[in-house]
């Protein structure tokens, strides 16, 4: 299979959906001729023109509100907002309008809108370009929250997002954008469903559930631990809302031990949610307490040594798994 980057794969998915359905359009700052701050739309302006690749003024609340109206009338907007932190300016619109519109209209109105942009810590991006916040939105009924980790998933999940009648937050970790991986040929119309986890490495001693960039860090840790005979099963949920608990519980039944590795904050986060569901549904399977490895509960600093101290790394993950195996 050919190898392309995460960004190229997602762009190819967008391109295919725009070609397939003329109601799909993209709005954002610099997504026209410039091709997007992260090359998300590079080359598409020449193909689809300014009507479908609409450069906007800087007004997150404004353009998300505009696209909410457009989605209610049946078009399929893709809002490219660069960094999740910026879209927080539209939080009211996202929670009070987009998330509730189908419910408030008893399903008469659909809300086929995709909000896509970067999350994640890295590159000295500081307090306003590093946010994750996906667990926050997974708390809000109405949203689909998707977090692809591989190029193949980026493409297949974006295609599903654009075809979804529910609003989708499509979140791309900055440090994954230039990673490469196998992706089926352009003529393969592969749709990856929401709520279906991917087992990225099989193992029998510990189940590690990891999100976004932490999947890669956990795979590195698992590789090292394998040399000492500790076999870690690594699960990438791929979407946090809906969350595929079945795959997670199947793995736990095999291993009896679980760690959740999440760059996002611990309090009220995905790890807390999974641990609670495990306690509810699989308490007897546990041979040790469920452990969490999280980013530090602080805004993300600019300084490189401070930033490096915020996120879990290979060594902290290895340490946590060794402790868990010893329990």
């Amino acid at each position, binding site marked *: 299979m050919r190898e392309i980057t995460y960004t190229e794969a997602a762009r190819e998915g967008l391109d295919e959906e725009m070609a397939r359905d003329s109601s799909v359009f993209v709005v954002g700052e610099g997504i026209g001729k*410039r091709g997007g701050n992260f090359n998300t739309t590079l080359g598409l302006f020449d193909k689809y023109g300014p009507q479908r690749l609409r450069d906007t003024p*800087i*007004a997150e609340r404004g353009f998300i509100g505009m696209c909410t109206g457009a989605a209610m009338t049946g078009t399929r907007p893709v809002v490219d907002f660069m960094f999740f932190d910026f879209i927080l300016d539209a939080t009211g619109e996202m929670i009070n309008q987009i998330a509730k519109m189908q419910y408030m209209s008893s399903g008469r109105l659909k809300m086929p809108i995709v909000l896509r942009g970067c999350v994640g810590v890295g590159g000295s991006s500081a307090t306003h370009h590093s946010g994750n916040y996906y667990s926050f939105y997974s708390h809000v009924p109405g949203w689909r929250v998707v977090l692809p980790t591989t190029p193949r998933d980026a493409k297949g999940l974006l295609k599903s997002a654009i075809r979804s009648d529910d609003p989708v937050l499509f979140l791309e970790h900055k440090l994954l954008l230039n990673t490469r991986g196998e992706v089926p040929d352009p003529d393969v119309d592969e749709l990856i469903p929401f709520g279906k986890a991917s087992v990225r490495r099989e193992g029998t001693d510990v189940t590690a559930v990891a999100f976004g960039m932490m999947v890669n860090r956990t795979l590195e840790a698992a590789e090292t631990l394998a040399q000492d005979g500790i076999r870690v099963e690594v699960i990438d949920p791929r979407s946090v809302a809906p969350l595929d608990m079945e795959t997670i519980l199947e793995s736990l039944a095999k291993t009896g031990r679980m760690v959740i590795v999440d760059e996002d904050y611990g309090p009220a986060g995905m790890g807390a949610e999974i641990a609670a569901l495990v306690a509810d549904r699989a308490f007897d399977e546990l041979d040790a307490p469920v452990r969490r490895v999280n980013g530090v509960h602080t805004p993300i*600093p*600019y300084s490189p*040594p*401070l930033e490096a101290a915020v996120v879990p790394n290979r060594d902290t993950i290895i340490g946590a798994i060794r402790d868990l195996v010893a329990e």
Partner: protein
Amino acid sequence: MATVSGRPDVDVDLTHEQLREMYELMLLARALDERMWLLNRAGQAPFAVSGQGHEGAQAGAGFALDPSKDWLVPYYRDLTLALRFGTSPRDVMLHMLARAADPNSGGRQMPGHYSSKAHRILSGSSPIATQIPHATGIAFAAKARGEDTVVITGFGDGATSEGDFHEAMNFASIYKLGVIFLCENNGYAISVPQKKQMAVERVADYAKGYDMPGVTVDGLDAVEVYAVAKEAVDRARRGEGPTLIEAIVRRLTPHSSDDDDRTYRSAEELEDMHSSGPLRVTRNRLMEIGALSDDWEQETKERIKTLVNDATEHAEQSPLPDPGTLADHVYAKDGSRM
């Protein structure tokens, strides 16, 4: 209501010495700004954001205010204004190199996000325009306390598309608050040109909608900006409300160190962009009225070079933040924690 200032023979109440100070401030800001890019390109700082080309607008407006009692609510290009309000070159470099002693944020904020409580400079934000309602809020509180404090807030043309701009202007006008809304219009919201951002010809035209004075001024000429800003500040001080000043400036650099403006500005446009700038225009003005001499300029540039070198070396030798302080200031020290 919007007017275009055209005062080639403007007569201002500044002495030659004050005019030289104003020009010196611009030279200092430019020298620091150029050093910031150098540090970024040399790999010593992950990020730089620039005010090059905006110095005239900021110096002119800054000299109309009283740093001993007025407030500055800046955006990330307002280095000249931050210096005018008391930020030192050493502060600027400690911030740029994200040192523990950075008085803005101790290395937590990106460069260009100037702030100092001691100097009445409010902390900046990366999301555009959020500072504009903050400025209005400060003026609101000042008025409630019966002070004649004036608040200046800087923002680009891009910020005028945000709802915050509208909301803040509306409040300020309704309550007759002492706010100077300084739009430093460089024609670009990162990469999106003005004609794709607004249907009006001039940002100052927006003032009509709020029944407040709106003036467009040549932002390359610090003296002309001073004259316009002085009128606005006097009016604000008298309790007669806000003014929207649109200073036409040039962004002489890409948006930031992570941007390449050649992807959206033609070679021709870039060449024309650099054919003039605030330093040249303001210098010519001061030369004409006899406030400047070549000798003074030479000595001043030497002095500034020494200051910038000192500030850089001081910051380079200053310790990085200790990761043990990572979670400091998430909560007030005696507050409760999760």
